[in-house]
């Protein structure tokens, strides 16, 4: 069965980066040296080839895109200096844009002016919106939710989450469908029998537990004779702290909301710094800030595979960092005497940026948080299959 190729795929893809990839002559050194490539997921050579010959569907539906953690070893060993590591990153950008049917992700990646306008416009919109509905600033205590009503923030958040969920479901659904087709995974092979359920469960645990939360393979990448970086700036640790910090903040917020619902503590009630929920938030925030700051430094230094960052890559980090920083400034303002007026405005910025961060989930690098687990699920299935077929 002959496949009609898209002759312009590589030119289109190169709008997202990978300027040097044309030098690739398919030798396969990258795949040979890759510490993460195995029989169940071969890359980068295969994926570069798919892009070169124009097999779009195969490229975006390759779980291999997301089983790569971008250590950059392939780039250091490429005899053609084609930068395969950068290609993998670019292909992931391309896949994110491919599964975002709104075109926003593509604009953010490939059109700096329009993308910048979208990013700044969204932030300005949220800031102006909250400024427009703002209330009184109390001078006796930092009553943030009198300044911007808690109900409005809550409602806006719900609306945004619904929008994001719609886009995300479409993207994840399409990717899952394509991956399933590509790997020959059927509904019955997932849920058709008790064994199938077992397989599915194991793959889910692998994707979410072992890999996403446990970062198992991320910890293993670059396990070769390369000099290892000191532990405090090792990539998996930076990522783990960012991820766990993010999840910790999510947990703190959820707990705070839950206690409000249960009537234990109303949201906005002043609490001491050692109060458990506050403590979780503070520690998680510190972890997030540490991780994101390192990510930004590495990206700034253009090290390894982050040598050609796109504005959209920065956008995600900047939104996270500003959200974290403003969070800590608010925390400082909460315990400051007398009540600082700037605390209210920092809060406004914090809420506006956090809203944008959530809204942009499906359109920026943030989208890896949904596509990578899906792909890892299929990788888990493939590993399971090959382990049992031996």
């Amino acid at each position, binding site marked *: 069965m*002959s496949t*009609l190729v898209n*002759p312009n795929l590589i*030119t289109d893809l190169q709008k997202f980066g990978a300027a040097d990839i044309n*030098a690739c*002559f398919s030798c396969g050194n990258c795949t040979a040296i890759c510490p993460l490539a195995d029989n169940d997921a071969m890359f980068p050579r295969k994926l570069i080839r798919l892009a070169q*010959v124009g*097999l779009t569907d195969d490229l975006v539906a390759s779980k291999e895109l997301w089983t790569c953690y971008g250590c950059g070893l392939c780039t250091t060993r490429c005899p053609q200096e084609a930068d395969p590591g950068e290609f993998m990153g670019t292909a992931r950008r391309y896949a994110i844009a491919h599964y975002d049917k709104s075109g926003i992700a593509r604009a953010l990646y490939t059109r700096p002016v329009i993308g910048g306008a979208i990013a700044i416009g969204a932030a300005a919109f949220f800031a102006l919106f909250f400024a427009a509905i703002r209330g009184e600033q109390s001078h006796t205590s930092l009553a943030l939710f009198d300044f911007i009503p808690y109900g409005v923030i809550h409602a806006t958040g719900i609306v945004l989450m619904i929008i994001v969920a719609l886009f995300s479901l479409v993207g994840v659904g399409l990717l899952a469908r394509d991956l399933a087709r590509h790997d020959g995974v059927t509904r019955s092979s997932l849920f058709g029998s008790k064994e199938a359920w077992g397989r599915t469960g194991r793959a889910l645990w692998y994707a979410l537990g072992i890999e996403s939360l446990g970062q198992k393979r991320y910890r293993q990448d670059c396990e070769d004779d390369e000099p290892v970086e000191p532990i405090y700036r090792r990539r998996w640790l930076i990522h783990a702290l960012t991820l766990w910090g993010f999840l910790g903040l999510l947990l703190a917020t959820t707990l705070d909301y839950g206690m409000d619902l249960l009537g234990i503590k109303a949201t906005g009630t002043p609490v001491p710094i050692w109060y458990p929920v506050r403590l979780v938030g503070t520690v998680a925030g510190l972890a997030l800030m540490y991780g994101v700051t390192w990510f930004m430094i590495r990206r700034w230094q253009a090290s390894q595979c982050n040598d050609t960052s796109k504005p959209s890559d920065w956008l995600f980090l900047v939104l996270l960092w500003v959200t974290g920083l403003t969070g800590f400034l608010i925390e400082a303002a909460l315990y400051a005497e007398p009540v600082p007026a700037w605390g209210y405005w920092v809060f406004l910025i914090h809420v506006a940026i956090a809203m944008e961060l959530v809204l942009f989930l499906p359109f920026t690098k943030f989208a890896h948080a949904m596509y990578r687990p899906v792909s890892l699920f299929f990788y888990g299935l493939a590993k399971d299959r090959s382990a049992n077929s031996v």
Partner: protein
Amino acid sequence: MSQADIPEAAAAGQEGGQPQRRIGVYICHCGGNISDYVDVAAVRDALKDEPGVVVSESPVFACSDGTQHDMIDDIRAQHLDGLVVASCSPKLHQVTFRNVAKRADLNQYAYTQVNVREQDSWAHPHDLAGATEKAIGLVRAGVAKTRLSDPLEPLVIQTVPRTLVVGGGIAGLRAAIGLADVGIQAVLVEREPKLGGWVAGFGATFPNDASGAEEVAGLLEEIRQRRDITTYTNAELTGKSGTFGDYMVELTLHRDGSDKALSVNVGSIVVATGFDSYAPDDGELGYGIQGVVTLPQFKEMVDATPSGQLTHAGRRVRSIAYIYCVGSRQGAGGNEYCSKYCCTATIHASLQVGGIDSSIRQFHLYRDIRAYGTNELLYNASRDAGSTFLKFADDALPAVATLPTGGLGVTLVDVLTDSRELTIPVDLVVLVTGMVPRENRGLVGVLKLPVGSDGFFNEIHPKLRPVETVVDGVMIAGCCQSPRTVGESVAAGLAAVAQSAALLKKGFAELEPLVARVNPEKCIGGGECLTTCPYDAITSIEWDARTIASVDPATCKGCGGCVPVCGRDAIDLLGYTDQQMRAAIEEMISTSEPVKEPVS
């Protein structure tokens, strides 16, 4: 050597008026190549008592410096007048031992080489006795032939310092200038109305991007200024007579509907008639469909496009597929050779395309890329510029067809993409056609050019004699020999210049005297020999009021083809006379020992 010089013993050995010859025989061990399978000492001893044999030795290596000196000493001390070395094939060392004879003031044609290696020891490694017996017979035959040898001298020909160049492509043009540079007049004939050949039609060419048209224009300007270069266009070589160094060639000039004949006296001929581009069959890889073109057609199209957009049949070209090795490397029965220039020419053209419009997507469907030497850098550059290379297997050629959606589709199984079958939609398909030999039947007939099984002309030796042919004084240069690049063609043209100079600049040439000779007393002018000679060396002449045959010794190759056809035994081959051959055969079969039964 006068009678007085001959020592008494030799003079006493004369029988029946014929002087007894004094022959030295050397049976070589060739390390062990011969002596391991032939009892060399037995051969030596068997030859000792042979009439006329004065010296019989068995050196370990006859060709070694020491043995050569010993032979020279023997020849001088023993007053030898014949030399026989039983060793390897004459192809290897005939010249060596002829020179030994020369250095010892012995006529070099009194030397006979007997091959007891390839034709004996190597052939019978398991039969020492039989091989030894055979060796004795072979050496005796050699001695018998040597006994009857006559002293011969090389033929000397006065040469004409003028060369005919056939073909006015870049190799012929550059050769003509080269000839003029070394002081040999050049006469250049070109069949077409214009000089310059293929290269005159090219724009930028690899490796230096220089314009082929400009390069040819420069050569033509140079030729215009040279008084010792004459060019004829619309002209053909239609006849050749005379001998190497002194040919008379007939040129036919096609002028205004009528033909004019012209005779030119030349010393050598350089054939640089070039190639034709392979013409695909109708339907071969889609040839015939709108948008499927050959490499020369594509090159013309690209050269004619300055910048901006590449168009074909009025429509903008946004994607191109190149299919390599069309008409080359076809396997048994077809053109088995690689055309050598087309990979690089295509890659170079694709870079040109990138310069015209960098947004054009280019797919190269190849079997093996042979952009050799520094052309590899062009290959790298074309990949860097975005060309994609896809590899198909020898036995799975791509297919070209019109897509249901319109436009062209090229389908192949790409070895580099998991051997998946891919269809690439493109606006233009370029069939990378190779070189084929040009039809030159007339010229081949006139010059008796050796044509290889692939249709290209053959040189004598691909490495050591790369432009000479078996026809003395006729050289070949460029793509008429085999597919090659412009640079390689010009290099061959200049090699032919150097070889012409080597033949003509001395003013004379020496030829082997081992040629046929007619005995005018015996010849009755029967004429059988006239039609037999493949070199047209035999003509009828008037002699003593009779018509007889005469062999031109400069033209004769000494093949001996005329000798047996003569009903009167009037022709003899010098060095291999009937008498000599008969004596050799007699000697070989008149052995006293029982003839060994052949192994069944």
